[in-house]
């Protein structure tokens, strides 16, 4: 109990005093996870839209692959990315292993299927007659797509929230491809693991608290956006 109490106090102290190392870790966590979420939105929303609207051979299989991908274990993604990025691996020439970019790649792989899956559900839950009506009113293809996405915005924001939540909380992939290098690829989750193995539970609790606060702020902002005007 005292550890939790002291951890909370330590979290407050670190935040109030703007501890440079903790600020650095927090900022990097935000940068990596936001960038990864952004990339997954660029990949996931178009794929989700196509899968929701188009009928083609193999669509059912692709959709089930996306749904399967929503539950991809981060540690498996981490291992796969690690193997691809090692010096003598297929993409070794890029020299990306143990960099924030490698973490962004792994996290984007984790989040993209989540965003795509939620997008499919969001667009398919739009009333089918609405689609006909939009077309009947003479919308161009682009207008049609934009209107559909706009109508599905609640679900799509849920997709972004879920994708972000998935990546900011994962530790397996970040640890493997980032290497938890101090001042370079250390993020809140990997720092917590390290502090636990060092036996510094108060600091670990403090870092966890900061991570929770960060995740809460971002998701709260997105939820506010989603629920506005409801």
């Amino acid at each position, binding site marked *: 109990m005292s550890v939790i109490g002291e951890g909370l106090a330590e979290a407050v102290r670190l935040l109030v005093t703007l501890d440079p190392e903790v600020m650095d870790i927090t900022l990097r966590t935000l940068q990596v996870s936001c960038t990864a979420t952004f990339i997954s939105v660029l990949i996931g929303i178009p794929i989700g839209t196509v899968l929701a609207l188009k009928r083609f051979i193999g669509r059912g299989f692709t959709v089930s692959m996306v749904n399967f991908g929503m539950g991809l274990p981060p540690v498996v993604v981490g291992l796969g990315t690690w193997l691809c990025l090692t010096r003598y691996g297929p993409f070794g020439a890029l020299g990306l292993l143990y960099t924030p970019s490698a973490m962004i790649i792994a996290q984007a792989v984790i989040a993209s299927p989540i965003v795509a899956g939620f997008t499919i559900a969001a667009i398919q839950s739009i009333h089918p007659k609405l689609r006909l009506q939009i077309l009947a009113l003479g919308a161009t293809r682009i207008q049609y797509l934009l209107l559909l996405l706009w109508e599905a915005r609640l679900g799509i924001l849920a997709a972004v929230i879920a994708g972000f939540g998935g990546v900011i909380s994962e530790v397996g992939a970040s640890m493997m491809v980032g290497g938890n290098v101090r001042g370079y690829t250390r993020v809140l989750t990997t720092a917590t693991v390290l502090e636990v193995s060092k*036996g510094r539970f108060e600091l670990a609790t403090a870092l966890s608290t900061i991570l929770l606060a960060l995740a809460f702020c971002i998701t709260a902002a997105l939820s506010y956006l989603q629920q506005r005007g409801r």
Partner: protein
Amino acid sequence: MIKRIFIASLVFFCGFSFTGMLQVQNAAAAEPKVKDIILATTTSTVDSGLLDVLIPKFEKETGYRVKTISAGTGQALAMGEKGEADVLLCHAPAAEKKLVDEGAVVNYQLVMHNDFVIVGPTGDPAGIKGKTSSEAFRTIADKGVIFISRGDDSGTHKKEKAVWKSIEVNPQGQKWYHESGQGMGATLLMASEKQGYTLTDRGTYLAQKANVKIDILSEGDKALLNIYHVMQVNPEKFGKVNSEGGKAFVEFMIAPETQKIIGEFGKDKFGSPLFFPDAGKQM
């Protein structure tokens, strides 16, 4: 109105991620690739806090950036064997010798030592206190008391397996034998929670002492010496290895000044040093 707020926040979110991308790229541009050194090492040098003292000093003096990958010695050696690291700091001389013989690593230098100790519950239910390592292990096996093994092919795990082998006991699969599969710090915590015995390096135990309810029960055995070597991954065998950086790190580790810091490390906090500097000595 809602639409505008929606777009504004989207722009903000994207903008933030872009600054992220830019900063990431800037950082990469400011530090050319050859400046990066990948150091694969055992968890004990990281968990004890020693590298937190040495690495910043090395980086400041040389301008290199060290990417410390803290893994078990098994993984660290495997990374060296595949040319995936530039320099290794490990503590499994028998396994390291294989790499030296194969020519996977060069510039093999003795750095420091401490020792392994057998720790267990304060009351010592199995009664191993004061026994040698092999006697203690035999007693643990005979009485079937909980023993927590690292189980991760680390240097400590290799040492533990060697002791089991020397007394011809195969603990694998026994009910009292648990494999944690984690670093030394985490394994000590597990031993403390389960009130079991484990083999640990003294440094990590001292660093972790305040958090665990287990004591040193067997120590001072010659067989339990824990010797650390630093070595460069052979740049002639692996073209992508940062040979200059690796060489600089090896030289740094055996430099008199660094050796002095190693010898002093932990004295103020634990009353005794965690590691004993050995550079230049014969094993």
